[in-house]
């Protein structure tokens, strides 16, 4: 039977469909003993469109596990990576998550990149009570009991970024350009509200534009931006353009004669990884906002980079923000397990809140009760070698805010997973758990 023996599914398939009783004996997960390894699930796409970004994260986690094992493992047990490939296919993410939790019975999962994939696995993690560490900057508006968001929330990236543009660069006019999916949509909505409410920027001075994934013809939009910038006020572009669409975008900017001095572009999705694939010429001088850059000048970072170069065996390899997020997340989890003395999900969930570990930029990251962490915000300027020259950074770390204060729906919401509240969407106005509009809308409904 040409079915790989280390794939339990195949065995179940055969056993159940053909009822071949001979097969599959003793393949079931046996009762946990203290000496068998702690299973760490890795849920990153290794094939398909997202593989470019996600496969490096898989390697990162594997590296961290290896390091942990060298350091004697955890609770005297070794760690073992369980890698599955959701193949950049969102339904498959849910399926694989189920496989990890129900089949492999892993103790923790590090994974996901896109919001949609996270949304797809969320119900699975809540149903089967798993732990997920999500390492990518995202749109916020979410706080799940089972998910820990080690990437930036909008207030840890977008908002400081525009603060920087306004206060340091003197920008008065913003073009919010993004790929048409939920992260740019939400981020831009937050920024629109923030710019108008906090900085009194006129609505006419904000331009919003969305393009499809992998958009390659930017001529019209760029010339629109150019005209938008000719109205007299210093203008900047806030780009939430995703992945492949970036190269043609920056190229068109450069060719239409817009350089960073005239209209700086600050990007939230362009990091070292993305730059390593493109002709950086047109990007030089433009900006990016992250919580970590490979060029951070600290010894922790240099240690991390060296370890990474050794692990990949590629001297050209780069590190980026989501990798640091995994680095932090992994250490937090390990710390929490030590604290709890067990890998039991509920125990770890309780223990991890308040855990503080060093980040790579010389500071510390703490896990907040809303399952987000504290991060510094860095602004970097693209250099021709694909590195970022750090031009500004927040004086202190910023705590991630699950519910934006600038969206009507989520203004009054907070998340706090400590007892007694234990609620991801607590409404401070009517003091109830379960969303901003629950009570009054229900009343309104009744009134009708």
């Amino acid at each position, binding site marked *: 039977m040409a079915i*790989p023996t280390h*794939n339990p*599914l*195949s065995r*179940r*398939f055969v*056993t*159940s469909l053909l*009822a071949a*009783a001979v097969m*599959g*004996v*003793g393949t*079931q997960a046996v009762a946990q003993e203290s000496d068998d390894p702690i299973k760490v699930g890795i849920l990153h796409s*290794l*094939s398909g469109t997202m593989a470019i970004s996600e496969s490096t994260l898989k390697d990162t986690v594997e590296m961290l596990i290896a390091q942990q094992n060298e350091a004697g493992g955890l609770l005297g047990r070794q760690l073992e990576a369980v890698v*599955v*490939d*959701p*193949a950049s*296919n*969102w*339904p*498959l993410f*849910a*399926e694989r998550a*189920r*496989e990890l939790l*129900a*089949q492999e019975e892993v103790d923790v999962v590090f994974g996901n990149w*896109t919001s*949609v994939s996270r*949304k*797809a696995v*969320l*119900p*699975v993690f809540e149903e089967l009570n798993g732990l997920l560490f999500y390492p990518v900057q995202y749109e916020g*508006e979410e706080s799940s009991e089972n998910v820990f968001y080690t990437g930036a929330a909008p207030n840890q990236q977008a908002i400081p970024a525009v603060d920087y543009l306004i206060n340091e660069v003197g920008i008065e006019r913003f073009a919010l350009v993004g790929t*048409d*999916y*939920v992260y740019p*949509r*939400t981020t831009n*909505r937050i920024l629109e509200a923030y710019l108008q409410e906090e900085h009194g920027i006129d609505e006419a001075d904000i331009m919003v534009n*969305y393009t*499809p*994934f992998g958009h390659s013809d930017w001529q019209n939009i760029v010339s629109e931006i150019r005209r938008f910038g000719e109205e007299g006020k210093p203008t900047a572009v806030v780009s939430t353009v995703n992945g492949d669409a970036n190269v043609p975008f920056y190229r068109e900017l450069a060719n239409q004669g817009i350089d960073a001095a005239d209209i700086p572009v600050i990007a939230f999705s362009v990091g070292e990884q993305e730059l390593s694939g493109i002709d950086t010429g047109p990007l030089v001088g433009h900006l990016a906002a992250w919580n970590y850059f490979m060029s951070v000048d600290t010894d922790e970072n240099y240690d991390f980079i060296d370890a990474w170069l050794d692990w990949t065996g590629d001297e050209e390899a780069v590190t980026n923000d989501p990798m640091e997020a995994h680095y932090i997340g992994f250490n937090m989890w390990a710390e929490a397990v030590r604290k709890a003395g067990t890998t039991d999900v509920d125990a770890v969930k309780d223990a991890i809140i308040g855990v503080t570990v060093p980040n790579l930029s010389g500071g510390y990251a703490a896990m907040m009760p809303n399952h987000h962490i504290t991060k510094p915000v860095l602004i970097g300027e693209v250099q021709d070698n694909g590195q970022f020259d750090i031009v500004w950074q927040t004086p202190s770390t910023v705590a991630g805010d699950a519910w934006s204060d600038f*969206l*009507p*729906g989520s203004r009054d919401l907070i998340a706090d997973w400590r007892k007694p509240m234990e609620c*991801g*969407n607590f*409404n401070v106005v009517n003091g109830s758990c*379960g*969303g*901003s*509009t*629950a009570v009054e*809308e229900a009343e309104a*409904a009744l009134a009708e």
Partner: protein
Amino acid sequence: MTSSHSTRFWLLRPFGERTTQLFLGVLLAALALVTVLHVALPQGHALHVNAYTVNLFGKYLSYALLAVAVDLVWGYLGILSLGHGAFFALGGYAMGMYLMRQIGDRGTYGHPVLPDFMVFLNWESLPWYWQGFDMAWFAFAMVLLAPGLLALVFGFLAFRSRVTGVYLSIITQALTFALMLAFFRNEMGFGGNNGLTDFREILGFNLRSSDTRLGLFLASGVALALGYLLCRAIVTSKLGRVCVATRDAEARTRFLGYRVERFQLFVFVVSAMLAGVAGALYVPQVGIINPSEFSPLFSIEIVLWVALGGRATLYGAVIGAILVNYAKTVFTGVMPDAWLFALGGLFVLVTVLLPKGVAGLFAHLRRRHVTQPQEASA
């Protein structure tokens, strides 16, 4: 297909066929077996089928139904639709919208009416096309009507002006591509790239309980059986023979006095509706529907399932769908990079070496005559 059964009432004819009896037998046996192994046996028993696997099979079955739908038009009508994913996805979205409405005020914002994505994108009220989806009967009707209507309009235009063969394939592909772009747009009010997810319950059953999942698995099985019977009944009827006639000599059929374009339209719509049902069964089992189901690649993959299983047999389509998807599950688990090679290789091998598919082999072995398309070109 000899006309020996044709004296019966058309819907009952299939029961007279050996293949159909065999197919139904195997299918029902499999359903029963999985159910027993899942329910009766305790966790950890060697033969226990866990919820995850049941869920997986459920998905395969809904795919199989989709494949049957494609085989109906491709195998018997000679229309290679590269856009059936669109009908599948439309059915899925109809179901997804129903499930969204079922969440009610349990969404993160606790809004009693608006789905979460509408709340944080500041929609103040529910768009008109979301109305009614809180009622199961309406939603399920839409599962049939939405794809059916699209197929009707599109098919009417296409067949009326005798767009066939490659041209049809290409514009069906363009159709699903355009729909994908459209559904990616957040303005459309279908959740954009994130699609619809975080479903809670269906018809009052908790979607997160393994019993419900078993139920959905069985439902998919039954739907597949019924869909298969319907298609079988169609192809064994005189209408089915008109389809084959059209496939092989369209002009001739016209000169016999058959209004070919309307036979094509009829079958095309039926097939689209079946695809819609498949989508509706698929969504609650995988827990998400998003525009990627519209992607041309998916639609072409469906065609491969059919080609591999064997065209113009229907049961071949089922075999193909299950084979390919099982292979996909295994491959992406074991050697991710190899999957695309395998898939691509399949496309080439099947078309060049195995034009009649697996079922063709069976048929050859059983030396029984199965209707074969010769040149599928028009």
